[in-house]
């Protein structure tokens, strides 16, 4: 993070370059931090770079990155979605139960079911935020507990175990295409798809505009209602997709699946350079954030550092990243002011 800040600091003296360049620098900072961390860990423990270890890290990143892509869309719109962990749990349990009772159902049906459940959960969130005029924090804090409670009252204490779901369902997450695990391919496809949508398509640019200034976006004729719903549906649907991947990867699912996962997702997004004030950041940055968090987790394990540090590090990273965003924002404002005063 400090790397990103010093990069920005250098930028400060050359205020002529575009803002986009500054934000690209932010992601460069994460890449550098990632490289430094991997290098340090690999030097101390060579098996960190074994193909099995890399495979595990990528598999662990995949689900987090899928959820982080959706969360990034919502945060860019200046909202937040704290219900993603609960949506993941609901979708995972629903899909596992359905597969348990219909052993012949194809994988596509499972994916569609998960996406559908997530999308419905997202519609509820988005509608309450926009039409109910309730802040996203309140809505999704509420639905985070409501969706989780729903899963509990459905599942009770029971769980679906790996030997009860069909073979092909489990094989999906653990098989490869040309040596690359399906889970990773899906995560990359999601990042690419959502990334292109946010970067090149009208709806994406409108979401950035809404995040920068909701009022100005409304005055500019952007359909706030539809776009808010779209943002929450994307986040919900991707959390639902994450649930299917989770169930397929671990096989054993109970009502507590994905409990507290929203913190990791928020951390990935914020660490990945998506500003909590909305209006800036990229999807692939959020994906990088997810990768960084996972690598930290694995590095702790490999370096034999107390596993309990992991959550504390997640929290510290969130706070650091918000601080870095603030520094960037203050410096940009200052350099813009300086540039304007020259004119």
């Amino acid at each position, binding site marked *: 993070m400090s790397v990103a800040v010093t990069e920005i600091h250098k930028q400060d003296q050359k205020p002529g370059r575009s803002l986009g360049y500054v934000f690209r620098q932010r992601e460069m900072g994460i890449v550098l931090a990632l490289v430094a961390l991997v290098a340090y860990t690999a030097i101390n423990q060579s098996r960190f770079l074994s193909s099995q270890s890399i495979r595990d890290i990528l598999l662990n990143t995949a689900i987090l990155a899928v959820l982080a892509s959706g969360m990034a869309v919502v945060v860019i719109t200046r909202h937040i979605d704290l219900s993603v962990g609960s949506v993941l749990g609901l979708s995972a349990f629903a899909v596992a139960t359905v597969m348990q009772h219909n052993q012949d159902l194809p994988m596509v049906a499972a994916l569609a079911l998960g996406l559908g459940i997530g999308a419905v959960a997202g519609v509820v969130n988005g509608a309450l935020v926009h039409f109910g005029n309730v802040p996203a924090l309140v809505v999704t804090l509420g639905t985070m507990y409501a969706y989780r409670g729903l899963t509990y009252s459905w599942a009770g204490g029971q769980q679906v175990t790996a030997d009860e779901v069909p073979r092909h369902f489990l094989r999906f997450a653990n098989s490869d295409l040309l040596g690359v695990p399906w889970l990773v391919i899906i995560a990359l496809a999601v990042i690419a798809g959502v990334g292109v949508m946010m970067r090149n398509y009208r709806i994406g640019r409108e979401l950035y505009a809404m995040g920068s200034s909701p009022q100005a976006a409304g005055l500019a004729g952007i359909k706030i209602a539809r776009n808010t719903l779209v943002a929450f549906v994307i986040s919900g649907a991707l959390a639902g997709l994450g649930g299917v991947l989770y169930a397929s990867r671990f096989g054993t699912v109970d009502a507590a699946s994905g409990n507290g996962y929203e913190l990791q997702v928020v951390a990935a997004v914020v660490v990945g350079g998506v500003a909590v004030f909305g209006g800036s950041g990229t999807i692939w940055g959020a994906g990088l954030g997810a990768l960084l968090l996972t690598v930290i987790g694995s590095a702790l394990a490999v370096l034999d550092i107390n596993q309990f540090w992991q959550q504390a590090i997640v929290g510290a990273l969130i706070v650091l990243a918000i601080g870095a965003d*603030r520094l960037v924002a203050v410096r940009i404002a200052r350099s813009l002011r300086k540039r304007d005063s020259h004119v």
Partner: protein
Amino acid sequence: MSELRGRLASWDSAIIGVTVLVLIGASIGVENFGNSSNFTFLILDLLPIALIALPMTMIVITGEIDLSVASTLGLTSAIMGDLWNRGLTIETIMPLCVLAGALLGAVNGFLINRLGLPSLAVTIGTLALYRGLALVVLGDAAVADFPWTYTGWVTGTIGGAVPNVLIILVVLAVIAGVVLHATPFGRSLFAIGANDQAARFSGINVTRTKFWLYVVSGAVAGLAGVLWTLRYSSARADNGAGLELAVVAAVLLGGVSIFGGKGSLWGVLSGVLLLAALQNALRLQDVSGQALNIVTGVLLIASVLLPNIITGTRNALQKRRLRAAVPAQSS
């Protein structure tokens, strides 16, 4: 302005009314709800929520939020267990824990007010950070051998029905009520929440005021951590996980506006009582603890949604009435 105050008063009294109805209904309809040992449990259950809700009310009134309170509770509980293991006396540990809570609150206050970071994001971060630190301090172990003099006092009652800890709650609630509703400091909180720039220009030190609110919030969460640990005679890193939802829900249910500037302490206290009574009654009906979260979650959303709908319909009706009146006048 008077209309606004009237509407507020009506939301407060509506909540108090609903609370009374739920209490009466549950006493009649739910077996064992009305007996004295259940009353003790009810108070013990709502104690940490009510305590933390006192400073949270003030923070939300200034237009901010503190989501880290439950993790502060967990961390102080873990610290308490650790210090007890190290052989400190319980009389030293308890004030140290409250102090630790205050320090954790000061960290929030510093990040939010000195560095100007958004309170929502900061306290989501410290929610993860403090809970993580609790795990670092105590791991997944539990410390259980606290002296009976204190654990017994926390779960004990006066005359078999009124729990001892109710004294602490009443004293702190009275102090908070007086500070919020009868001092210039309390008025300044409403002013900050209504418009913090205007408050600044009228000579209120907004930064310092908010900073101290977070310190108090941390200290009270620390106290709640001590009481929680003594009540269950168990110091664990995951103590009070998820409690922030109940606190925020109670505060909003009690009529405090999430946008700041409006609210009252008696509304919040009846909100706490309403939530606790509903949960208690449902639990007596054998609804599982986790499923109860549906109720809390839905009430949280409803407490912001309903006033919005009421205001919205009222405004729409008013507009229609005005529109209907205009042609009548011109003709």
